[in-house]
């Protein structure tokens, strides 16, 4: 169970929130110019980082506001919470070393690692 500090309501249990996935994904300015692969990349492909990830969360059982969370997905440590429209803070995360040497990107799937 995470304790999330909603920028509006204060600290609440994770049960009151829902995660909206990766944050700061910019919608293409001219979608008709994209081919199907580029559009599918925008819609479906996410980095799925093992380590520091910027995410959108919604306080769905509270004030129903969206906001951003910087979370270390490997340790579940919440490093920052900031409102929509604000720039993401520059943070450093401690990427944990896993016994099997998984890449930082992808949950153990070596084929998704980016070089």
């Amino acid at each position, binding site marked *: 169970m995470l304790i999330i500090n909603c920028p*509006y309501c204060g600290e609440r249990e994770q049960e009151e929130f829902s995660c909206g996935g990766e944050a700061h994904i910019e919608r293409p300015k001219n979608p008709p110019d994209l081919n199907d692969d580029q559009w599918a990349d925008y819609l479906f492909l996410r980095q799925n980082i093992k380590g520091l990830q910027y995410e959108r969360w919604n306080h769905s059982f509270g004030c129903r506001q969206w906001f951003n969370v910087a979370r270390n997905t490997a340790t579940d440590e919440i490093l920052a919470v900031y409102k929509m429209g604000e720039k993401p803070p520059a943070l450093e995360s401690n990427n944990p070393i896993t016994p099997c040497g998984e890449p930082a990107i992808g949950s153990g799937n070596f084929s998704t690692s980016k070089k």
Partner: protein
Amino acid sequence: MTLKRSTVFEDVKIEKNGISIQELPFVEKINLRGDTKDRDFMSNAGAVLDILIPTEPNTKIQNKDLQVIWLSPNEWLLSFLNENHFFRILEELNNKLNPEKTSITDISENKTVLRIEGNHTTELLRKFIVLDIDNVLNSNLRVAQTIFIKIPVLIIRNHNYQEKQSFDIHVNRSHSKYLRDLLLDGCNQFIN
């Protein structure tokens, strides 16, 4: 069209092991939305309601006619204590606020209000909600929206320090029987 406006339960008040659970009489409610940075909205709404709209999260402000409850940075619940003012205020809000920048919705039928009172009320609520009651609901000006098992609720603290504990729970009408049954079951451990 005439609307039938009534409470959910016929047996309005139940007492068990020192805790009373009572459905409050039907009260009119308005959901009001607007931008707090819009001076016209804040001043006109304040003038119509004769009360300052709360901008501090999880708080309420009350006068003799109505409660104004903070729901989100741009949303408030107006819960009327005096039926006579409801239609007048609804009409005045519609007349004075800019319809392009505000939303005024009569949500009277949406929810009902259960009042629970008694010495073990806080302990009873702790069985069902994940909210840190002592920190969030730390005075009788505080409110909180949270989840009761799986039900979205709005909880309002009524009592001052050292007074008999009393909370109002705004809950969807269709969930109210389930919520009351859970509360009654939770009372079993409190031997009066």
